[in-house]
């Protein structure tokens, strides 16, 4: 029995252990050097990542409130990998930061929240996990303590997420009123498409859309992404988003399965809006972080397209895409974070002539952007291709053509940045930056991921075999 609690909850236990270790170091009297701390924490996270692949026991706990299976373990591993990469990227910024331990305690708490969220089998656990994964993030957004924009970001984030939580909670209460249960498995059989159920669904969808920053619930994204420290932005746009998409998929495919004809239509609407608005805004941005924020909004629109093919293929393509998106986006953020930490420059114009001074970083950024744009043979192309392929199974050509057209528009703005880096002249380019070992490792992992994930077919196959649809 105890053994079961240990193994099924293994990923959570590991995180809790790391959090406590950090807490003891914090309250302890010994003064540690930042560098030493960073290297040891990253080592712990690496161990955590590796441990994620062993002794995974599928099972369900707390009367079915919590459950885990091989697919969920895979999702947690993906998040762990993302966490590790974000931590590596954050190195140049945290090296000088006074509150580095708090940073890790907070960020690991949100990760813990996400783990509970994606393992939830009950709306209550889901909600608890969701809140645990959101509230510390607001504090993290404020972590550039002396910057005004950073506190503005935190404030906006906490207020906006209060709206969304309120609405979602309202939806969950109604749901309980209508069906008398909050267990996913029971809900799935009790929902049949009555008007109240659809209303409930829209409220919950609104809450999800907020977290996924789907248009028109996306407005907080740009301000928060811009104001927050780059590492936090990276975390928000990749890890947080992936986690919420994982659980969104579960909820859509299990709880609201019977409403599928109705929600297909809404997802269609939201996806079209999201892709279009995300792209149009991305075109006009000049701040790198804002630019990546809007481009990531548009990417979610594509994920919704893949998700709409309610099938094993749809599920696989979404997870596969998110893995690739993680590599591509973190590679881009890695470069931006390093530049921002060493020079404070974050605008696209600042990156003009970047290639002359920093060829390695330029290539990393360019390849990452090509992957985000979906240019073959980078993995981003395969990710998008499978999403579109999965969406195409429903035969909604309008959606497919629209998505594909927008891929071209997105090309334009990604290429604009690449052009600035490689081709534009600049009197005062960013000086040559020494890349520290840890971010270099992160970039190498990301590049490897971008180049290989598309070509190694066993990755796709492995996800496909794990998906239990």
């Amino acid at each position, binding site marked *: 029995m105890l053994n079961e609690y240990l193994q099924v909850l293994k990923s959570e236990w590991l995180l809790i252990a790391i959090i406590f270790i950090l807490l003891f170091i914090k309250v302890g009297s010994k003064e540690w050097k930042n560098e030493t701390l960073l290297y040891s924490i990253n080592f712990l996270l690496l161990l955590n990542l590796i441990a994620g692949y062993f002794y995974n026991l599928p099972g369900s706990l707390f009367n079915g409130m919590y459950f885990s299976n091989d697919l969920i373990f895979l999702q947690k591993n993906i998040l762990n990998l993302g966490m590790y990469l974000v931590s590596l990227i954050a190195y140049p910024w945290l090296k000088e930061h006074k509150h580095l331990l708090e940073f890790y305690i907070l960020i690991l708490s949100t990760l813990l929240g996400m783990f509970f969220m994606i393992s939830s089998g009950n709306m209550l656990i889901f909600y608890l996990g969701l809140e645990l994964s959101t509230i510390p993030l607001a504090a993290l957004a404020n972590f550039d303590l002396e910057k005004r924009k950073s506190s503005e970001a935190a*404030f*906006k984030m906490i*207020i*906006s997420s209060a*709206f*969304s939580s309120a*609405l979602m909670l309202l939806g969950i209460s109604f749901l309980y009123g209508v069906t008398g249960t909050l267990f996913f498995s029971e809900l799935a059989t009790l929902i049949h498409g009555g008007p109240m159920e*659809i*209303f409930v669904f*829209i*409220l919950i969808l*609104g809450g999800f*859309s*907020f977290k996924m920053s789907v248009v*028109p*619930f996306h*407005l*907080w994204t*740009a*301000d928060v992404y811009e104001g927050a420290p780059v590492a936090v932005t990276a975390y928000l746009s990749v890890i947080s988003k992936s986690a919420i998409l994982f659980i969104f998929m579960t909820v859509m495919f299990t709880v609201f399965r019977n409403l599928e004809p*109705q929600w297909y*239509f*809404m997802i269609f*609407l*939201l996806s079209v809006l999201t892709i279009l*608005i995300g792209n*149009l*805004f991305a*075109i*006009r941005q000049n701040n790198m972080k804002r630019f990546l924020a809007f481009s990531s909004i548009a990417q979610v629109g594509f994920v919704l397209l893949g998700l709409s093919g309610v099938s*094993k*293929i749809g599920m696989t393509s979404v997870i596969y895409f998110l893995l690739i998106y993680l590599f591509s986006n973190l590679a881009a953020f890695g470069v931006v974070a390093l530049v921002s930490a060493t020079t404070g420059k974050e605008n696209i114009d600042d990156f003009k002539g970047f290639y002359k001074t920093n060829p390695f970083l330029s290539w990393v950024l360019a390849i990452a952007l090509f992957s985000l744009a979906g*240019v*073959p*043979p980078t993995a981003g*192309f395969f990710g998008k*291709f*499978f999403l*579109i*392929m999965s969406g*195409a*199974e429903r035969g909604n*050509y309008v959606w*497919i*053509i629209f998505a*594909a*057209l927008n*891929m*071209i*528009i997105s*090309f*334009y703005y990604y*290429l604009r940045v690449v*052009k600035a880096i*490689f*081709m534009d002249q600049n009197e005062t380019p960013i000086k040559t930056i020494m890349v520290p070992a840890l971010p270099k490792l992160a970039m190498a992992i990301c590049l490897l991921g971008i180049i290989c994930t598309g070509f190694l*077919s066993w990755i*796709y*196959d492995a996800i*496909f075999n794990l998906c239990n649809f």
Partner: protein
Amino acid sequence: MSHPIYIVLIPLIPLVCFLVLGIFGRKYFTNSAGIFGTLGLLTSTLFSLSTAYEYFFVSGKLNGVFQKIEVLKFTWLEFSPGVSIDLGILIDPITVMMLVVVSFVSLMVHLFSLGYMKGETRFATYYAFLGLFTFSMLGLVLSSNIFQIYLFWELVGVSSFLLIGFYFEKPSAVAASKKAFIVTRFADLGFLIGILVLSFYSHTLDFGVLIERLTTAGSPYLNTINAASFLGVSALTWGLLLVFMGGAGKSAMFPLHIWLPDAMEGPTPVSALIHAATMVVAGVFLVARLFPVFALSDPAALQVVMYTGAFSAFFAAVIACTQTDIKRVLAYSTMSQIGYMMFALGVSKYNGEEGLGYMGSMFHLFTHAFFKSLLFLGAGAVIHMVHSNEMKDMGGLRKLMPITHISFLIACLAIAGIPPFSGFFSKEEILMASFESNKLIYAVALLTSGLTAFYMFRLYYSIFWSKPTDSHHGHHGEGTLTMKIPLVLLAVLAIVAGFVPISSWITADGNAIHSSIPITFSILPVSLAVIGILLATRLFKTENELPQRIAIQMGGLYKAASRKFYIDEVYLFITKKVLFNLIGKPAAWFDKNIVDGFMNLLAKLTAGLSELIKGYQSGKVQDYALYFFGGITGLIIAFIYLWK
């Protein structure tokens, strides 16, 4: 085929060149990069030739019919049970021909660039890019399924983007490479959707299976794809047209041709490689690859191919007459010749002797590759010498550059269709095929053929004659030996390529075609070509002499008793007034403003829309909350009114 390893090596060697030069080039191969790349390509070419020999003479035939041989195949991604993406190598007559053409022309360009690009700071990078391009192009022609071809297709796009933008200090080169990339991406989007449609209905991506499933009368796949329709057109037609759209983008068919003239900003040998013989014919190759489906199941789509091709051929020829930049003349000429290949496919049928158009198209692809890359390399040599692309800076170069002069003349005669040069033979086949199938297309083809002769010789005379031979001082010779060898080799091929018995090798259904073209049929096209040449001779051989004389006579037009002058006048009227001003200029204007303008409009529209909505991102949290609730309400309203 006994040695698949051979064939795998053909594309792999350029890839290795790319990797080695790309990674170590700057450090270790600053000067020897060219030699390294050229030797690699030489090996590839030899393998290609041996493959061709083995296929055509030893193992390709079974019961007198050339077979499609799948040399290599392994499953790469299993998308869902039944649908998988394979990687493979498919060998059939057109593949083998393209292998030879691509590797040979690439070898010539490698060789030529040794002299042409000498002293460039990024010499090694240049050769690395050439290797990448050659690899992708060879991979494209060897692909055994439609997804694989798409991958290489994109890779070709990327590498040509790198090559066109090679002089990235030049803003115009950067703009051109971007334009080429975006326009062809736009077309590729159609291609991708076309692939999705075709593979969705046929449940396969493999060329062989796909063709079989979509051509066998009464097959369930064919029935469902014909039954499904969108906007009143069957899914099969949509699929094929979208695939053709991809082809039209790469092959610069109207109205997706706008990137081609600008792409001339790249180094000239690159144009010889990309814009003469390889990338631009990828579209033709693609249509030829799927030709059975076009011809047997969907003649309507084939009609579109035919009219697009014919229009492009004529349209580009007219514009070519008005250009003064010699590379742009060649660019439009390429577009025109590819139009020829396209409509030749369009007029063709599948079986036996009726497949003449298909054969002619492939034949023309083959011969065109040699004389067009020769023209580009010749132009490169000229530009290398006078450091300008403009006709007015040239003239009288025939004594200074005897080898370039003679080889250029041979290429001009070949493209004009003068017997016994290679262009004559392939053009005759195309004209014959269109004569038998569609008289309108035949008329357009004839007219274009006359125009071709005219503008090519206008080009020829403006470069090599028109001015006294001693007008260029301080020149540095005709170029190195490595620049001359490719010219001579290609010139020889431009003469003899017409005697290659393509008709018994490359046909739609694999059976040899034994038709012969009566000599009387050739009289009309050849005399039109001769007229075009004579006209060009009269107008451009000596500088400005004739236009001036005409100008003097202008006042006394009625008094012009001399019949000769009268004809000159009509010629001049037709060419200068009618052709240049009435057709050429509006056509160029249309091209520049309407076709280009439409693309610009799209871009402006997007930018404007994005400007319009920026107010919604106000930065105020209360507004965000408002939109948030608005979103929920909107969803509910949309649900109540739109759904059901």
